[in-house]
């Protein structure tokens, strides 16, 4: 049943969010700390595990794949509801700070990617090299 996959996805998200929220409270931070990332780890675990096969394979899996495929349209909607007007009204300081932060961060990507790099390779040519 398609809904089994959707339900698994939902449970992963809710569990992750709960843990992220609890982490925020424990660290005394007004934010959800990594809730989505933790939820993703749950789903990665479930989709790689034999035990959850009934929820991730066949028709059930299409329930998850549907939402994965809806990701880009949802991101387009997300872009359409950003406060772009406020960003353009922030003046020179906001513009400079935002732009400078992005440029410096972009520049650091290739440098930090080298950490533990030897076997970094493009996705297309990837797939299991044996060495884990």
């Amino acid at each position, binding site marked *: 049943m398609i809904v089994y996959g959707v339900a698994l996805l939902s449970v992963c998200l809710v569990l992750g969010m709960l843990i992220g929220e609890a982490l925020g409270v424990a*660290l005394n931070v007004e934010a959800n700390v990594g*809730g989505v990332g933790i939820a993703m780890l749950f789903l990665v675990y479930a*989709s790689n595990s034999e035990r959850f096969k009934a929820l991730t394979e066949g028709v059930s899996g299409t329930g998850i794949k549907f939402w994965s495929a809806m990701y880009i349209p949802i991101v387009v909607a*997300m872009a359409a509801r*950003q406060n772009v007007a406020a*960003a353009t009204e922030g003046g020179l300081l906001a513009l400079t700070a*935002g732009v400078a*932060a992005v440029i410096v*961060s972009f520049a650091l990507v290739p440098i930090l990617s080298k950490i533990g790099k030897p076997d970094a390779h493009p996705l297309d040519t990837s797939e299991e090299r044996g060495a*884990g």
Partner: protein
Amino acid sequence: MDIIETVFVRNDLIVAFAVVGATMWVSYLLANKLTAGRIHGSAIAIALGLLAAYWGGTVSGGTRGVADVTLLGGIGLMGGGMMRDFAIVATAFGVHISELKKAGIAGVISIFAGVIVSFIVGAAVAVMFGYTDPAAITTIGAGAVTYIVGPVTGEAIGASDAVITLSVAAGLVKSILVMIGTPLIAKRIGLDNPQSAMVFGGLMGTTSGVAAGLAATDPKLVPYGAMTATFYTGLGCLLGPSVLFFIVSAIY
């Protein structure tokens, strides 16, 4: 007119699906016909979305872009945090654990480096513009981290409303620039494999920026970037009002 409004408002999410679908169709058509596929269709769709958001914000005076236009209210739900997070988590389906492990350490380092570097840059710009109050410098620096870290930090350390607004604007500029700039710069910074995507997510940190930027570059990279990006705001909220504020206070 009344009938249209009633139907559109009552079925707002469904209207949003149709509108976004039409936008995607137009975008992919433009991408193939005008740019011969050089620019990704989703990049055009996201750019159109941002333009629409600008228009919506100016017309309505609201803060949620096109979602504040009555007939398009459903865009707010479709593009809101709940649906976004649900779809982001779904992209993790089929990710190999081995890929995550390979970039583990680099990913963690990149989150710390990303928060600290963005903060320093933002704080330096604040100083350049003549700010000397540690609370203001810290808040603007935190805004350059993300537009959530800015206000959270500002409120915690008692910055003025004007400064908090500036910090949100800085964070928005960052997020929007990441959305637009990522597909353009991807090749040059080697953003073509899971490891660099994880580093990228950790360095940029803005969930919406990373989500849209990677989607427009290569959807296969999304789960890796999103995974690290989601820890970034939390870390920023943790460091901003504490360690980073203490350091700035010690200097000024």
